[in-house]
Every structure is written in C-alpha cells, then in structure tokens.
C-alpha cells in the first residue's frame, strides 16, 4: 500500500515534468524518425557532383557523363555562374568543369570526406570514359549495394538505429533518472526529510525503481511500435531472448546509476563523473554507427564498457533473430558490470 502510493506519486509528479517527458518519450522517437527517414532505403546514398555545363559539349564530356551514370552519383548540371554561386555558398562538395580538352575538378575542403570519395569516383569515371573514347569496351563495374554488416535481415538504417536507441534509453535512465536524481535528493536534503519519518527507506527507493522500470517499458514499447508502423521494423528473434537481454541491460545501468551516485556529493561532481562514462559509451558503443572503421584497440577497449556488448547481443536477437550463444562473453561483461556496480551501490550508498 505504502509502496503503491509512493509509486503512484512518482508517476504523478513525473507526468508534470514536461521536459523529462519530452526527453524520455518523444526524443528517442524523433531520433528514430529523423535518422530513419534521412537514411531511408537500401540503396547507396547518391554522391552529388556539380557539372558546369560548357557552351558546347565535346565527345569527351558526353563520354564522362555517360560513364558517371554507372556510378552512384547524382549529377547537378549548372551554368558557370550558377555553379560559382553554389560553390561560394559552400554547398558543393565536388565540382567538375570541362576545360579545353581536359577537366578541372574542385573539392570542397570543408566536406573533405564526402568530397574525396566523390572525387575518386569521378576520377575512375574519367579513366573509363577515356578508354571508351579510344574504342575500348566499357569495363565491367563491381556492383555496389549498401547493407548492414553482419546483420542478415536488417534492411535499413532505422532497423540498425532502433536497438541503439533502446540502449541509449537504458543508459540515460540509469545515469540520469536514477544516479543524478539520487545525488540531488541527497544534496538538497530530501533523503534527510524522509529519514525523520517512519517510512522505511527501501519503500521510497523501490517506488522510484518501479517507476523507472515502467517508464523504460513504455519507452521501449513506443519505439517498437513506431519502428514497426513507420519503417516496418520487426523483431526477428524471440521475444523471450529480447526480454532477457533488455532485463540484463536495465539491471546493469540502474545499478550503475546507484553506484555512481555514491561517488559524488554534489550534482556538479556527479555530472562530471557520469559524463566520463556517458559520452564514451554514447559515441563509441555503436548506438548510432558501427565502429568497424575505428582502430582495433579502440574497438576492443569499448567492449569493456557494458553498452557495446549489450547492443551487440540486442542487435543479434532483434535484427538477426540469432540465439545468444555467440554473445555469452559480451553478456558476461554486462553481468560483471551489474554485479560490481550493485556491490558498490550496496556498500557505499549514503542517505546524507
């Protein structure tokens, strides 16, 4: 009864906190919708090239354009003045212009990654068009398609992102909704005020934990529904395994929040400590992109943080419908973190 009242009060007060509601429920869905739509479809994204139209098209120009069509490029044909104004606004990554019997290519130094890649494609197309002009046949191109590595059934970026967002949600719940909140309760004396009442403290904490768990459950269900309705993403694996992985992750990040909160006396200190974990995990654990291109040592280092192995296991179940047998080591890391954090929390948790 007391527990139920405590839980109901948590929900009542939480529902009045618009900002928290937005970040918890709306933000992950907006992320999924935003990035899911931007990177929609299984095709490779088109690399755009600005083509400065000459007053008269020479055979070499025709040949280059024709060859470029074979590549995943999007040609934007502009007059010299239009091309110049687009370039000066910085919107052009690569611009190519016929000059006498050759071409001139400019690469935007601000868009260096995209620019370099496009420039290489154009270089290749140029070489091929040259050999065609000399009467040689069109060489065979290697067909390119964009797929998510190691995920047999994931068809689009949204399907990759959704489990990442589930992991992010758990991490924010643990580090902020649990850890940060408890530091501020201690700092502001809310725990002391409770301590002079006969309310057993575990009821207060359990009410809080139950509230966070229901929030996480609702968050997860929202994301799954939106993913399914908008992007047709479905859980490829068993719901039992999905639940197992989610429960392990929830326990881990909740324990982490309690443990970290015991190392800080003020909210400011807590923010500094938690960011030391939050940001590396957010960017290096494969929430938004895989780390396949990162140096090997970095990939191995982030495996030691719990979010990365958690997401690998979650994606294996959710995206590939796999069993967890190949992820036992990763889940073991998650469990070890949970045990460590739980132990620290029990040993160090302070009310005042």
């Amino acid at each position, binding site marked *: 009864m*007391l527990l139920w009242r405590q839980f109901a009060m948590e929900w009542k007060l939480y529902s*009045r906190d618009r900002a928290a509601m937005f970040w918890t429920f709306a933000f992950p869905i907006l992320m999924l919708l935003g990035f899911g739509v931007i990177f929609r479809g299984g095709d490779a994204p088109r690399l755009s090239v600005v083509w400065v139209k000459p007053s008269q098209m020479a055979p070499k120009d025709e040949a280059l354009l024709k060859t470029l069509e074979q590549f995943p490029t999007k040609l934007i044909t502009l007059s010299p003045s239009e091309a110049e104004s687009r370039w000066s606004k910085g919107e052009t990554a690569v611009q190519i212009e016929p000059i006498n019997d050759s071409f001139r290519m400019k690469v935007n130094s601000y868009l260096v990654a995209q620019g370099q890649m496009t420039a290489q494609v154009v270089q290749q197309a140029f070489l091929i068009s040259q050999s065609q002009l000399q009467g040689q046949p069109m060489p065979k191109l290697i067909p390119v398609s964009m797929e998510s590595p190691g995920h047999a059934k994931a068809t689009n970026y949204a399907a990759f992102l959704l489990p990442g967002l589930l992991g992010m949600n758990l991490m924010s719940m643990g580090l902020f909704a649990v850890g940060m909140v408890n530091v501020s309760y201690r700092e502001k*004396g809310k725990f002391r005020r409770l*301590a*002079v009442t006969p309310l057993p403290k575990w009821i207060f904490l359990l009410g809080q934990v139950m509230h966070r768990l229901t929030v996480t459950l609702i968050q997860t269900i929202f994301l799954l529904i939106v993913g399914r309705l908008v992007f047709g993403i479905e859980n490829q694996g068993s719901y039992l395994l999905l639940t197992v992985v989610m429960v392990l992750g929830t326990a881990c990040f909740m324990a982490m929040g309690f443990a970290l909160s015991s190392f800080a006396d003020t909210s400011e200190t807590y923010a500094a400590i938690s960011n030391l974990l939050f940001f590396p995990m957010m960017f290096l654990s494969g929430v938004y992109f895989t780390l396949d291109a990162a140096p090997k040592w970095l990939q191995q280092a982030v495996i030691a943080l719990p979010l990365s192995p958690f997401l690998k296991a979650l994606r294996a179940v959710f995206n590939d419908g796999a069993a967890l047998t190949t992820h036992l080591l990763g889940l073991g890391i998650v469990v070890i973190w949970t045990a460590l954090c739980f132990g620290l929390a029990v040993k160090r948790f302070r009310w005042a």
Partner: protein
Amino acid sequence: MSDLALRIRGLKKQYPNVLAVAGVDLDVKRGEVFGLLGPNGAGKTTTLEMIEGLTEADSGEMEILGLNWKQNASEIRARIGVQLQSTSLFNKITPREALTLYGGYYPKARTADELLELVQLTDKADAYHITLSGGQMQRLALAMALVNDPELVFLDEPTTGLDPQARQSLWAVVRKIKSEGRTVILTTHYMDEAEALCDRLAIMDHGQVLTSGTPAELISQLALPSVVELSFEGRAPAAESFATLLGTPIDVRGDLWEIPTPDPKTLLPRLLEGAETHEIPYQQVHVRRATLEDVFLHKTGRSLRE
C-alpha cells in the same frame, strides 16, 4: 509518564576536525518552548540532529518522550515532528499533496486542510511548491512537521532569511503549536526570537551549554543588569585609558561604548563629568536593561552574529 519531553546527559559528537558537541546536558519539560541559542557553528544543529535520530551520538544518554533510539526508533519517529533547516520538495508538488504524501508515512495523520488552515496556506493549497514565497515555504515545512500530530516538535532556525512580517506570522504559528499542548524545541540565532517565543533556553557555544534558564533568569544572573551606552558619530574611539580612569570596563561595539553596571545611578554623574573633562566626543547617553544579547556577550566574549 515523566514530565520531561527530553532528557540528555553528556551528549558528545566528534567530527574529523572538530568536536562539534562536547558534552551537552539538557532537560526540556513537556509543553514548553525551549530554545537553543548560539552563533553559527556552536553545535546547535548537530545536537538537534542527534536528538532527531539523523546523526548518531558518540556517547551520552538520551531520553525522548521517555523512549530511546536504540529500542524505540520507529515509535519516536511517529511521535516527533521535525522541520529541518531547509526543506526541499519537488518543484511541482502542491502543499496539499505534500501534506497528504507525508501524512501517509505515519500511523495517524492530521488532514491536509486542517494543517493548511493552521499555517494559513489554504489559498495556496493547490499551487505548485516552486511558486510559494520563502515565508510560505517555511510555513509549509512547519505544517509538514505537524502532519503526524506530534507531541514534540523540532524547528531548526525556522525564521532565518525571512522578512519581519513573515517572521511574525511564523511566530504566531509557533505560539499556536504551544497552545495545543505540544513541546517545541527550536534553534535560533536571533535574540528577539528567543525572548519572544521561548519559555526557557540554553546558550550554546563551542559545542557546550554555557548557561540555561528562563530569559528573565538568565538576565538576572548577570551581576550587571544595566548597561549605559554612549553613542558616537561614526566608529567609537578606543576606550582603554578612559575605562582605567573610570575604574570599570568599557566594551567598544561599532559606534557605541557599552558600560555594564550594577548601579547606573552612581556611575552616570562620574561618567558624564569624566567625559566632559577629557573631551570625549559622544553624541548621546542611553541607559537600558541588560538583554539576552548582553548575557551572550558576557558568557562567550563575543556577539551572537559575529
């Protein structure tokens, strides 16, 4: 049933760098308002925290309503009401909700309406906590301390930081609490508050009780119940040589010379004559009865809010 609401003997608390409470004895009778008076850092709050069960004492005996923390912790909690120095609530909880929530923690509770009426917050009953003024927040904190109909109420600096009007209205509530037959223990560093509210009080400094009694007793304990004040324009000049001449000590405080005396009638003519001869540039002379402030100054050698 003992007629003491609180009985303490030899209470001690050592913090890493300071002996916060160095052996305190207190007796508080049922139904009285008892004040712990002293400057910041005197050990008032630590003493209160040990009585409230928030801090464990290193040694000493304590009986609260005839009970002790080791054996009757939850019964004590159910029968005392505590207002901490600052009470932090959720920004978006209303006074009515806060009182109902905290009332739910106790075996018996007064209704929110009744408490809101008592502290005159009825018209703010459903406003978010964050929209209340400082005085209203303090009155809500006071109402929360009364939610379980407690026999013994602790108020830790209830009026610090409030404007004079808000203090007056809080004092009125404290008097009402007393009239309901409850025992009140409060800390303060305001002399006027202690004189206005407390039946008895103890003056603390450096973790010890220096003296205790009713305000009148404490003042009459002073051997020098009157004070002659000479006021100056700007800071008062040094007084050593004149004090030697006069044969009585002079306290220099701000723009005043304060001369405690048992007999202002004899002192005054000599004082004024001496001041004339030595061309002391005083503006006014004022004779007053000693106050708690003088008791404090006399006992601790320093002023209360230094």
